């Protein structure tokens, strides 16, 4: 790539190129606040997950205090990862990505501060409520009403901010990240209301189960997936210091996701009283998701081809690449899992848990982490505090998570095979004990990595070596740190 092109991507030390083109588009302190809060939740929620996993090995571990029982903590873990860690980081990154792609500041920029406090206080109240046993009973939509209402207001405010900012843009074309992010906020403002204000209060029986299937998959497929892809598509060419491989493929990927994902909801209710043709549509739609997933993967790796040397010193690049690998594996697992024969084998086993971890954590949390690594040193205008801590974060995450995903997948298939062979359910559970121990150890390994990594980002903000800012640089000038 030419020197000029390298400068465009922020490569080398020619950072004044940014200063010449960037006005005061975003609020540095606001975004850093979101990064810090996101980092906190990304340590908190997986730690709760590790505690919950230990209960599989020692059933009475912390079982004598009601708010530390499995039924109370498990929703805190799930809601904590989805809405706490992932979403807080993505909202913060939205305040960076959207103005940078639109060429105008975010619509109603002060809302970002109000949203920060409403969102995070809402999360704290939500997790305390869940621990105290106030639960709406809808998986992944478990916050009680007094939390759901402010969260819904926040989602509507965010959708308005993103859509109006895009409408006011000076950049003539809309980059793929904006398609994904605007859709994610619009879909989620609607879906969250559906899951929290309609489902718990109407549609009894099997209809409720069918609709819940839709809700929970919309959380994954119409929030986590497009929001995560929006983030990854933004940082991918910047981290690779290469042009995105194909605009055409990004179009195919987006529209294939938008077309097929809304139909997958019933695929966890195969062999249920839900009509057979509905199940068939869900299976077909699930398999057809191979199209957007493989399309995205081709686009991601196609972008990196020829630019692998940039992978060496870029933690955002490392996290994007490993996240893409987990995306390929996790989504292939999810598509094939929907097939009737695979469902017969894997339903009621930890195969499903392995799949959900591969996609939600392995892919999207890791991509959000890539964004945090890219943004934090630049906004703090400081070098990454410690390369060693970043290395430890990356490798403990990769090692811990790979073992966990492999362990859960293998465990699920073994248990499914045992059950199909007529083994007693309790006996099959006893046989799973070694796998649960491995899962807990792998989870703790990931947690240690997360603590080291997010401590590193915190220390970067507080004590990283300052990067000189050229005189006359605008308030939101972005320097180029050495290791990011």
């Amino acid at each position: 790539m030419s020197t000029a092109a390298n400068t465009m991507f922020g490569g080398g030390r020619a950072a004044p190129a940014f200063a010449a083109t960037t006005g005061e588009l975003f609020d540095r302190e606001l975004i850093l606040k979101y990064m810090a809060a996101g980092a906190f939740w990304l340590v908190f929620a997986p730690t709760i997950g590790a505690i919950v996993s230990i209960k599989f090995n020692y059933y009475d571990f912390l079982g004598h205090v009601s708010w530390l029982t499995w039924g109370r903590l498990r929703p805190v873990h799930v809601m904590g990862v989805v809405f706490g860690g992932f979403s807080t980081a993505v909202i913060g990154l939205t305040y960076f990505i959207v103005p940078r792609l639109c060429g105008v500041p975010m619509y109603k920029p002060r809302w970002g501060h109000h949203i920060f406090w409403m969102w995070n206080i809402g999360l704290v109240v939500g997790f305390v409520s869940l621990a105290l046993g106030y639960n709406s009973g809808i998986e992944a939509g478990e916050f009680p009403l007094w939390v759901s209402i402010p969260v819904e207001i926040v989602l509507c405010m965010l959708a308005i901010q993103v859509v109006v900012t895009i409408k006011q843009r000076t950049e003539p074309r809309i980059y793929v990240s904006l398609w994904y992010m605007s859709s994610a906020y619009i879909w989620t403002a609607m879906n969250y209301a559906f899951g929290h204000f309609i489902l718990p209060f109407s549609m009894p029986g099997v209809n409720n189960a069918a609709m819940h299937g839709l809700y929970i998959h919309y959380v994954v497929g119409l929030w986590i997936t497009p929001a995560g892809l929006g983030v990854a598509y933004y940082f991918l060419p910047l981290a690779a210091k290469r042009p995105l491989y194909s605009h055409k493929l990004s179009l195919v990927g987006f529209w294939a996701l938008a077309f097929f994902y809304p139909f997958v909801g019933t695929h966890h209710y195969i062999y249920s009283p839900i009509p057979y043709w509905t199940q068939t549509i869900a299976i077909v739609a699930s398999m057809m998701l191979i199209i957007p997933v493989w399309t995205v993967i081709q686009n991601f790796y196609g972008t990196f081809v020829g630019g692998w040397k940039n992978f060496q010193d870029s933690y955002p690049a490392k996290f994007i690449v490993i996240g893409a690998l987990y995306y390929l594996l996790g989504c292939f697992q999810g598509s094939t899992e929907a097939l009737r024969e695979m469902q017969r084998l894997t339903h009621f086993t930890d195969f499903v848990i392995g799949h959900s971890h591969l996609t939600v954590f392995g892919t999207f949390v890791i991509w959000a982490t890539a964004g945090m690594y890219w943004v934090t040193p630049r906004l703090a205008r400081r070098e990454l505090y410690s390369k060693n801590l970043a290395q430890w974060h990356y490798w403990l995450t990769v090692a811990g998570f790979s073992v966990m995903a492999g362990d859960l997948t293998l465990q699920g298939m073994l248990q499914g095979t045992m059950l199909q062979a007529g083994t007693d359910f309790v006996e099959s559970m006893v046989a799973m004990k070694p796998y649960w121990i491995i899962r807990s150890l792998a989870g703790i390994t990931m947690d240690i990595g997360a603590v080291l990594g997010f401590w590193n980002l915190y220390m970067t903000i507080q004590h990283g070596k300052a990067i000189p800012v050229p005189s006359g640089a605008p308030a939101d000038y972005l320097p180029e740190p050495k290791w990011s």
Partner: protein
Amino acid sequence: MSDKDHHSESITRYEPSGIEEKHGIIPMWLAVVYAAMFVWMVWYTIVFWTDKG
């Protein structure tokens, strides 16, 4: 280089993010996957619309 190649290699730059993207192509292997998936979709939907499949 043909006009088609020129078009697929043409680069759009997004200011002020500095992001660039190629117009790009859909690789042949992926087009084959799309076609195969569509054929499979039609077959599966017809055969398994009811539990008689």
